[in-house]
């Protein structure tokens, strides 16, 4: 964790991550020897320093710790002190490193000449040009300058406001393409407050999610996944060993649905009806919490017309399913309903469900003093666009937002932009909007800049620069402040010189609020160390506004017979992830597709439409048409075509450009679904997946058992042979024998572990063609299998688990290696000696788990991506076999530390990258010799659930023990 910082050293860091750190910054590589004229106490070569900061990839605002070596940040990990992430970090968060080191990042300011070509200019010229335009615009009249950005922390947003007013304008619009603002509107209606609630899934017994994909992207995935894992952990409830019962209502089986007991496939827009119908069941059954203070009559009238049969006729969802959901929700002690759709009705219904079952403040809580929404209301955006169209805007500054890509064609933003004489784009990798801008300013990556965040009441994140800028970029805050000062803003209106001052000032204010008595600098230093100030917020007592019941949602009707359901890609999200090779190469967990976008079609629908797998199809809505290749899969409801967002960039760097299609292009503003027509083009365009078969072919790769069996104490039997069968005398592992326990039940498939492995072990990214040739380099992968139909009742909806080297004690890969490149260490690790490997590839042939990876070519990291490489891990050359070694570099460094400190190793002191990143702590690592280690205790406590992959067949004695997935036997819900 973050090392203690003395005040002096803090000042050093404040001046951007230490002078010595400067050298590697934008050099080709940190290879040359670093001359320490003045040795810096935070910069010991070979020893990493850690800086707490915050993640800005999504609104959840998790805290991160940046691992810095020789002045280069090489890895991001969750900040344990942060109450949201609690030390875990999702794949997107970790991949923001590749945003920092992206080879396509704008390196210098550019101006677009009349010929439309970009000319490189100096910052001075750039600022002069900017200020010139601004002043003319400001002179021309009010509101001639506009600022369009995505929220980037209270301070920056505030500064932007001040800056605008300095230029005689107030047109600041903060916009997120996928903002969940309807939730706030619904909250407004139901409880008269404009903030979104926080959830405590772990407090619930039953959960229904109406289109809220909280494991992939919805709201705060890490936090919710963690809670969900707790919710699904077998524990005594009401004297019975149970796990939480969950159902997902939505068009597509995403990870959330896959981890639930029931996936209720509905057409987009039918969620509300299902929710209302569930409420109907509750009301009819009288499962209304007495002290919720609802008037049954009103409720009755509210849900009138939503009896399961009627709804079932409209939605095609069997009535008994709805009744089952009702029972499960109503009879639970603590239940929670989540809504993630774009229509308000569902949210209202969800709130009502939570309210009537008396779960407000229990599983769903509104916090006192939540920060206001950083987003501007839709009206502002429309206003801005209108103003642009009327040529009222002369200077438009776009910061960290990509409206050209992410806005519906209906918004006509493109045309509007053409009306603006001077568009300033501030960002990292030039995107579609940048292509239209006149002035391009390279601004700092969040990891290079000062910032703060206020994701929720009680959490004020503090972001600090963790290294010297990689490119000739500037802090957006500083740029704005400068130009504000140029506008003649005095120290009263804009009291800060730099963004750093501003953030600092913000925290001094916070200190006053909290009534903290320390010296301001100490308070700030502490905040820097902790990555923010975390106070616990009290739940506000809210009361339900019955007025809601007046305007009851109208019945949905059958809906279009072919609907398009668009969803944010778990890694690429709304497209902002597309420039990061890791996120492109890590397979999307459910469909396992890489480097592409696709349209999921149910086999029946595909047959009806005459669409073949991998065929290019054109999706036509009233907004437009996109061509995308078809993925015939049962993970989507029939009659629905599901398509992920994120691809289809026409710019945005080499990794994003020209892949797949952009689903925004066929959506109405704010909508996530539409009626669609499909034309099969007959052209083939193969989707690439590193996985061959969805069918486990009856092999025990991922095992599951029902909670009923677990309660009964019955373990699935595994085949045995008569008598002894051990051919070799066992080896002794005197010091340690490293092992891992992986809880399949807790694993959500979010792939954070995979990303962590890429970052920690310098795994090469090989691109779509490479993946198509079956040469993906990931040391660990998310195995996903779907159970055969006939076994559906005795299986979870989907088998998901991380698969990595099992570090077998009888490793089949080892004895076949002619040169001892693969061998077993004294600590029980299946070591791979890269320098000794001659590349016979025999080991991979004999590996039953197929977790070894071969370097077919010399791996390449276009500069400056190579700056991210972990100096503790060799970069493997062509012709060498590589594999997971339980992050042996981490093990060794801790062991050395223990040796030098002359102490014994502490349990769970060593944490491999995958285990560290896991949001649900599904992976735990430890010493198999130490029966008391947390890892071993986990095995003992779940004796019935333990299994080892392929051990019965091959006697490989893996060091990894899995804990079986737990499911409810179907039909018992």
């Amino acid at each position, binding site marked *: 964790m973050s090392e203690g910082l003395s005040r002096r050293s803090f000042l050093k860091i404040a001046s951007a991550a230490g002078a010595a750190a400067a050298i590697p910054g934008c050099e080709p590589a940190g290879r040359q020897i670093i001359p320490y004229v003045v040795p810096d106490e935070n910069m010991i070569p070979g020893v990493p320093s850690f800086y707490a900061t915050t993640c800005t990839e999504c609104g959840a605002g998790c805290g991160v710790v940046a691992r810095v070596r020789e002045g280069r940040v090489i890895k991001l990990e969750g900040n344990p002190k942060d109450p949201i992430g609690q030390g875990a970090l999702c794949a997107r968060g970790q991949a923001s490193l590749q945003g920092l080191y992206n080879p396509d990042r704008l390196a210098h300011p550019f101006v677009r000449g009349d010929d439309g070509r970009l000319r490189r200019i100096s910052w001075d010229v750039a600022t002069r040009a900017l200020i010139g335009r601004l002043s003319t615009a400001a002179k021309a009249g009010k509101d001639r300058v506009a600022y369009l950005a995505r929220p980037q922390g209270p301070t920056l947003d505030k500064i932007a406001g001040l800056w605008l007013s300095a230029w005689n304008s107030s047109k600041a619009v903060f916009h997120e393409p996928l903002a969940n603002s309807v939730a706030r509107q619904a909250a407004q209606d139901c409880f008269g407050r404009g903030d979104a609630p926080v959830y405590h899934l772990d407090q619930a017994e039953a959960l229904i999610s109406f289109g809220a994909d909280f494991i992939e992207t919805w709201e705060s995935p890490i936090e919710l996944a963690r809670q969900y894992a707790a919710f699904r952990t077998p524990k005594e409830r009401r004297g019975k060993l149970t796990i939480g019962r969950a159902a997902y209502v939505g068009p597509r089986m995403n990870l959330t649905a896959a981890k639930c007991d029931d996936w209720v496939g509905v057409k987009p827009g039918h969620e509300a009806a299902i929710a209302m119908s569930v409420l109907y069941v509750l009301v009819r059954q009288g499962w209304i919490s007495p002290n919720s203070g609802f008037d049954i009559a009103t409720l009755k009238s509210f849900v009138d017309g939503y009896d399961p049969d009627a709804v079932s006729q409209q939605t095609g969802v069997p009535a008994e399913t709805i009744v089952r959901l009702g029972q499960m929700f109503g009879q639970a002690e603590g239940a929670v309903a989540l809504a993630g759709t774009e229509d308000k009705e569902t949210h209202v219904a969800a709130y009502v469900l939570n309210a009537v079952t008396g779960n407000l403040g229990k599983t769903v809580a509104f916090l006192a003093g939540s920060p206001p929404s950083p987003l501007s209301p839709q009206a502002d955006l429309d206003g801005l666009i209108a103003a642009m169209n009327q040529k009222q805007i002369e200077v438009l500054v776009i910061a960290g937002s990509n409206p050209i890509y992410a806005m519906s064609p209906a918004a006509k933003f493109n045309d509007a932009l053409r009306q603006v004489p001077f568009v300033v784009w501030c960002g990292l990798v030039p995107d579609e909007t940048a292509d239209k801008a006149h002035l391009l300013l390279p601004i700092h990556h969040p990891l290079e800049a000062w910032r703060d965040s206020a994701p929720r009441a009680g959490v004020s994140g503090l972001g600090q620069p963790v290294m010297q800028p990689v490119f000739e970029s500037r802090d957006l805050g500083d740029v704005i402040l400068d130009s504000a000062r140029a506008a003649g803003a005095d120290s009263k209106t804009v009291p800060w010189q730099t963004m750093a001052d501003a953030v600092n000032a913000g925290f001094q204010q916070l200190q006053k609020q909290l009534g903290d008595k320390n010296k301001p600098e100490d308070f700030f230093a502490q905040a820097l160390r902790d990555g923010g100030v975390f106070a616990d917020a009290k739940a506000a007592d809210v009361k339900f506004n019955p007025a809601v019941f007046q305007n009851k949602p109208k019945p949905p009707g059958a809906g279009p017979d072919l609907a398009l359901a668009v969803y944010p890609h778990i890694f690429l999200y709304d497209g902002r992830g597309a420039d990061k090779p890791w996120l492109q190469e890590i397979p999307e967990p459910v469909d396992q597709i890489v480097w592409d976008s696709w349209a999921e079609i149910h086999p029946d629908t595909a047959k009806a439409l005459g669409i073949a797998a991998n065929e290019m199809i054109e999706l036509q809505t009233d907004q437009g048409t996109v061509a995308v290749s078809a993925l015939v899969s049962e993970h989507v409801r029939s009659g629905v075509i599901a398509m992920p967002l994120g691809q289809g960039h026409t710019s945005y760097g080499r990794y994003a450009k020209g892949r797949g299609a952009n689903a925004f292009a066929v959506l109405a503003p704010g909508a996530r679904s539409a009626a669609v027509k499909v034309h099969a083009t007959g052209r083939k365009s193969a989707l690439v997946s590193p996985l061959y078969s969805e069918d486990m072919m009856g092999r025990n790769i991922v095992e599951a058992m029902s909670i009923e069996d677990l309660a009964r104490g019955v373990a699935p039997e595994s085949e045995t*042979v*008569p*008598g*002894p*069968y*051990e*051919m*070799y005398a066992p080896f002794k592992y005197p010091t340690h024998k490293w092992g891992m326990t992986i809880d399949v039940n807790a694993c959500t498939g979010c792939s954070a572990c995979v990303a962590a492995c890429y970052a920690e072990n310098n795994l090469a990214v090989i691109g779509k063609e490479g993946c198509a040739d079956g040469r993906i380099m990931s040391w660990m992968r998310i195995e996903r299998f779907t159970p055969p139909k006939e076994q559906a009742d005795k299986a979870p909806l989907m088998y998901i688990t991380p698969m990595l080297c099992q570090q077998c004690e*009888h490793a*089949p890969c080892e*004895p076949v290696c002619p040169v001892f490149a693969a061998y077993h260490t004294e600590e029980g690790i299946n070591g791979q000696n890269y320098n000794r490997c001659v590349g016979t590839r025999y080991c991979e042939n004999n590996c039953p788990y197929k977790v070894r990876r071969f370097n077919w070519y010399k791996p390449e990291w276009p500069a400056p991506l190579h700056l991210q490489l972990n100096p503790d891990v060799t970069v493997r050359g062509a012709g060498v076999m590589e594999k997971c070694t339980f992050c042996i570099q981490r093990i060794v460094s801790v062991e050395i530390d223990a040796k030098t400190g002359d102490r014994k190793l502490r349990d769970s002191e060593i944490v491999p990258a995958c285990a560290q990143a896991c949001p649900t702590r599904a992976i735990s690592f430890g010493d198999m010799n130490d029966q008391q280690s947390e890892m071993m205790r986990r095995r003992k406590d779940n004796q019935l659930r333990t299994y080892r992959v392929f051990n*019965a*067949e*091959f*006697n490989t004695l893996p060091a990894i023990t899995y804990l079986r997935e737990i499911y409810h036997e179907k039909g018992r819900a």
Partner: protein
Amino acid sequence: MSSNSESTSRAPAPGAHEPIQLSLGSWTTLAVVLVAVGAVGFFLALWQGMAARAWQAYLVNLLFWMSIAQGGVVVSTAFYLSQGRWAGPAQYRLAEMFAGFIPLGFLLFWGMWAGRAAIFPWVLHPDPQKTMWLNAPFLFARDGAGLLLLTLLSLWFVSASRREVVREWAKTPNNIVLPPNIMRRLSPAVALSFAFVYSLLAFDLIMSLSPQWRSTLFGAWFFATSFWSGITAMALTAVILQAAFGRRVVFFNRRVLHDLGKMVFAFSVFWVYLLFAQYLVIWYGDIPVETFFIVRRSIMPWLPLSIAMITLIWGVPFFVLLGRRPKRTPKILGSVALLGLVGIFLEDYVLIVPSLSPEVIPYGWVEIAVTAGFLGAFALCAFPGLRRLMAASSGPFAPAGELE
């Protein structure tokens, strides 16, 4: 096959030219007594409630003696196929000498139907996955059919091989001249069906006793063993006759013994090669369903037997017969052959019994009686063949040599 180069021009001595008439009276009675002992012992054991042991011994002996008889016939087919000739008709008579036991063995095989429950574990505890193959009616049907076919073919082959025309051909030393058509048709037929049927027997009567275990080479190994047991039995007989009748039989010729010795040596090495090929693969592969079978036999109490078996079948022949002289010394060759046969008996025992009684080595009067019975029966069946052999090996002809 074997060499036809070594001329026998120097043997045999004059006065060896009238065929020897054997009188086996006393031997016959002894054999009959043994049979009686065996039968009594067997049924006594059943009556005493030692059915398992009785049937195990029965199976071991059945396979052992059938292997010798059938192996011999196949050696003879090999002689025809390779046209390797060094002792004229005698070598064929010698190889076919035990053929008489083949039909008896076929009948005794059906005897096992009575003891199927005691022999096959899967009769009482069927393995649901394998019942399609491992069920008593089908097993006896297919193996019975196979054995019937093989028996008939063998008998036909043996009678054909005794025809005048064939005997005449056998005397002509020029071995570019192909054998008479009948033999050229029958020999491959017998050899092929032997390979097929004996693999089947190996899988059904030995492998299936540990239903989880499998080894693809097992069948081939079993019939190779049977082939070798045929050769060793021939060698033993040859040495005995040589000792009994001296220069009056063709086997007095050291070169004949030398060739038999070479065959004993070569095929014992082949046997151990096949054994090693299985052991190494299983040892290295480390797959439980394969290893347990080996492990069971390489721990006490079975370890000594396993070692003894390998020593007798490979160790002794290899190191003793390595040189030229031992092959030509009757006493050495004879004792090696005898020990080899004991080794093969042990092999059958070690393959079969541990699957049925893993923890203890059953031995005692039951086993001895049953073995004695089979020995007697075998002898009775072999006597007619022996008479023919005497006629051929001491007949008035110049033993086949090479054309010079």
